[in-house]
């Protein structure tokens, strides 16, 4: 008898009843979303916005981009997803910034916010600013810019390379046509001939041997590695000041990944720009980045130079990530693993987001969100473990079960 009781869906302690939203809650969420979204969309659609409204000053003139307390939320049917929840970091000129984190941590949304490409109307930049120093010396706040102005920057000053090179190239046009289009769009003085010359030059630059042949082929005729090279060539064709590479090698094989990373590095030296490298692969970060930003559930939990992050990680999540990577040292033994699941950033609690998965959690961790602590001029982390004011609480360290 008891058997049946367990398996009757509704009778299990009411858990499954609460797993789904009730109709009432759902309607309430939709109503709230619609209200908020309408507000944001109205502001974005304004015309003839005065330039002074989005002109600003860089905090440090040697930076290309400064993210300052950026909040990007998604108003979804099941609640507000705080995809980026107070992110601040700088991209200095001529450096590679690695942004690392797991799926859903907000690393891609951060870069999309910079391009104003967050999927509207659900996704909206709620507050904070992204300061961008354009090639003309002016400094814009991207979050306040109207879309029409943004078009001038997108693709020219800031270029993007995506994870899946097959889906980011249009399958019905030849490679050359797509590349020429980019050049013609952003350079008003370009003629079809000069665009063609430029495209072929770029294809040569990214190490494509038969540039003429590739120029006149269709995307499906190329291999994955080739397509990614084409994407890089396309990104380079307008002399961008910043390249955003979103998981550029995740879909590629190791040997091809090595080629592409090599290429990216050499390209970096050629153009005088910066790269924002987004990836989940710590190995790629260690190899490429100068500075590293570690994100977790929409927040930066640790940032610092690549050596600081890899030799002296502070946040338990960063430490856990490093330890859980299998390899030579771990052969045959049990791997260290962070327990639990990657959190779904809906209805996040106020305490540290890593609280439930953390081995070093203390009582204070379940209270306010920890503040950023500074360890060196470049190294920051937000964890109570290192907060000396709160050090009294370390007695309460709970051992993991």
């Amino acid at each position: 008898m008891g058997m049946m009781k367990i398996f009757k869906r509704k009778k299990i302690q009411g858990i499954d009843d609460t797993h789904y939203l009730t109709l009432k809650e759902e309607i309430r969420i939709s109503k709230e979303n619609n209200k908020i979204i309408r507000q944001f969309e109205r502001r974005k659609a304004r015309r003839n916005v005065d330039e002074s409204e989005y002109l600003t000053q860089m905090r440090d003139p040697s930076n290309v981009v400064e993210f300052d307390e950026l909040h990007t939320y998604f108003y979804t049917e099941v609640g507000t997803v705080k995809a980026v929840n107070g992110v601040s970091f700088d991209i200095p000129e001529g450096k590679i910034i690695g942004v690392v984190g797991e799926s859903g941590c907000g690393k891609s949304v951060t870069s999309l916010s910079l391009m104003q490409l967050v999927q509207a109307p659900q996704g909206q930049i709620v507050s904070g600013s992204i300061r961008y120093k354009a090639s003309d010396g002016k400094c814009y706040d991207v979050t306040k810019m109207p879309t029409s102005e943004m078009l001038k920057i997108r693709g020219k000053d800031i270029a993007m390379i995506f994870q899946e090179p097959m889906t980011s190239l249009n399958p019905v046009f030849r490679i050359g046509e797509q590349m020429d289009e980019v050049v013609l769009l952003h350079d008003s003085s370009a003629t079809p001939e000069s665009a063609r010359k430029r495209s072929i030059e770029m294809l040569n630059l990214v190490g494509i041997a038969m540039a003429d042949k590739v120029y006149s082929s269709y995307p499906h005729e190329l291999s994955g590695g080739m397509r990614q090279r084409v994407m890089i060539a396309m990104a380079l064709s307008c002399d961008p000041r910043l390249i955003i590479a979103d998981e550029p090698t995740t879909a590629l094989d190791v040997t091809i990944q090595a080629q592409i990373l090599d290429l990216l590095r050499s390209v970096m030296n050629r153009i005088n720009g910066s790269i924002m490298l987004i990836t989940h692969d710590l190995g790629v970060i260690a190899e490429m980045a100068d500075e590293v930003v570690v994100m977790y559930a929409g927040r930066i939990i640790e940032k610092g130079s690549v050596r600081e992050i890899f030799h002296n990680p502070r946040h338990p999540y960063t430490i856990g990530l490093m330890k859980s990577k299998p390899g030579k040292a771990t052969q045959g033994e049990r791997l260290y693993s962070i327990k639990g699941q990657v959190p779904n950033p809906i209805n996040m609690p106020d305490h540290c987001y890593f609280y439930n998965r953390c081995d070093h959690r203390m009582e204070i961790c379940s209270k306010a969100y920890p503040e950023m602590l500074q360890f060196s001029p470049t190294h920051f982390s937000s964890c109570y473990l290192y907060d000396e004011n709160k050090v009294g609480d370390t007695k309460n360290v709970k051992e993991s079960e």
Partner: protein
Amino acid sequence: MENDKKDMNDNILVVNNLKKYYPVSRLSFGTKAFVKAVDDVSLSIKRGTTMGLVGESGCGKTTIGRTILRLHEVTGGQVLFDGIDLAKIPTRKLRKMRPQMQMIFQDPYSSLSPRLPIGEIIGEAVRDHKIVPKSEYRQYIVKVMKDCGLQPQYFYRYPHEFSGGQRQRISIARAVALKPRFIICDEPVSALDVSIQSQIINLMMDLQEQFGYTYLFISHDLSVVEHISDTIGVMYLGSMVETGDKKLVFSNPMHPYTKALLSAVPVSDPDIKMNRIILKGDIPSPVNPPSGCKFRTRCQSCMKICSEKVPVLKEYEKGHSVACHLYSEN
């Protein structure tokens, strides 16, 4: 003869000269071309051990897994599972044998039927094959779910309510519930987040310890393979280029491809600058592979003989074989 017998008992799976060709339609008449997805591959796996199969996309590692389980028909060769040739037995018998050999798939999103609740996904085949008596069925499923780190109240939930890691646990539970002896893991962790990867790897190793499973672990991630396997096979364009004990292969890679592959893995230490061997070009099309050694187009130590003769897999030290002309005596 005696040796053969001993081999049989020791190895749960012996694959001899397995071939899997797919016909491709050509525009011109008459000529029939084949994609040689798996071309003359032999391997054997000892009971209770893990064999890692590495290679890049298109090297046939997934096809070999599916062909061993005869999810694809076999073109040629033998697949001896406990001495029974799976390539030849009739489908009805094969269906009865299926529970003994299971598979875990790469994509946790497409490998679970979207319209069946979790309990049903795991338990369906258990009922079909009468793995446990009817009276114990529910308890058994709950036990399997617990073994795989799933909570019993998930029984009536649907796959779309779970994250990738949990879905992969469901996929593992489905395989484990049938009390298999041999499990093919086709890139089980490559679609997962780093922190979840280690959980799943640990789960799989725990289950192996507990129930003595034999794994064929297919992956493109060398560090995962290095962690989990006892022996290793490296594939390139449908052929096995190097195989042997894990320690021997990783400490002393012999085939130029293995060397390049190993050197290409990024290391999580900014101060170690690898002496990287960067291969030229792309993997050739498997419809029209290079003559002789298939790797010669990208090989740095390519010789004249490489384009003329196909190298065969030969043992160069105990438990370490390689197919490369560099190591042939003359």
